[in-house]
């Protein structure tokens, strides 16, 4: 068993309104960042888990996304390995 650091990204489905992204885009515009074309906001969930291999870790994360983390009606998800910056200890 090794510890795997996964980064799960939950992304609002294309076509759905993303009011938060819209508000941020608007704010960036008025701050003078006029080169911005699009903003969408999702979640980044960092999960540390024990698994025999990274394949198995990812498979488990996929199951978690389907069962709990992502709302299949409104969100897509993506799973990757996390960078070290996002590696804290244990959730208490």
């Amino acid at each position, binding site marked *: 068993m090794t510890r795997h650091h996964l980064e799960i990204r939950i992304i609002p489905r294309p076509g759905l309104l993303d009011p938060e992204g819209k508000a*941020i885009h608007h704010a960036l515009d008025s701050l003078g960042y006029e080169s911005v074309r699009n903003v969408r906001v999702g979640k980044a969930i960092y999960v540390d888990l024990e698994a025999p291999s990274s394949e198995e870790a990812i498979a488990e994360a996929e199951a978690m996304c389907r069962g709990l983390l992502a709302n299949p009606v409104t969100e897509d998800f993506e799973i990757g390995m996390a960078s070290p910056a996002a590696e804290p200890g244990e959730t208490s």
Partner: protein
Amino acid sequence: MRLAVVTFPGSNCDYDVYQAIKSVGGVPEFIWHRDAALDSVDAVVLPGGFSYGDYLRAGAIARMSPIMEQVVTFAAGGGPVLGICNGFQILCEAGLLPGALTRNDTLKFESKDVWVRVENADTTFSRDYGQGQALRMPIAHAEGNYYADEETLDSLESGGQVVFRYCDPSGHDGEGWNPNGSARSIAGIRNEAGNVLGMMPHPERAVEEVLGSVDGLGVFTSLLRQLSPAAA
């Protein structure tokens, strides 16, 4: 005494604050966030609500608004600034108060009456209260969990900057009476100079018996008395 009530897109307690100020004899005035002039006002109130929908972080987008530059200048010149709920969040985002308001540890919007104890009755916004007095007021927020690092918290405590703290109805520290997980049960703080106050509970909703409490009146009467010691 002219008190500016700043309306941001999404503010929704501006009208309530306006009424509360009027009820204690102040002269409230709505200022739209893009009408960036605060020249002749005596105090500024940033009311509660969901400026910019609370998108990104509560208060994060509002503090970019043109009026906030004026508010910063006004505060730097010693002008009194009161931020309630979303107003408190904006003040922290703008750096006028230390720390940050993060998501309630209950992960829920919390709407109910709470009790707060007056920790410092010698401020612009609390002089009409007694030291240690317990006040009943509503809260209504999703991001009211006050956070600052230990060092900042210590200096807030030692500098008398903690003005209101959640407590039980008898005014004692009460396990289970902190509604949102705030560090050291902090409900309201002032800046070092003493002219800027931020608080999560809504004093403007506790100004008439018919609303269930008049414990919020003191915040407004204190401010008015400070502005014109002869009156009030």
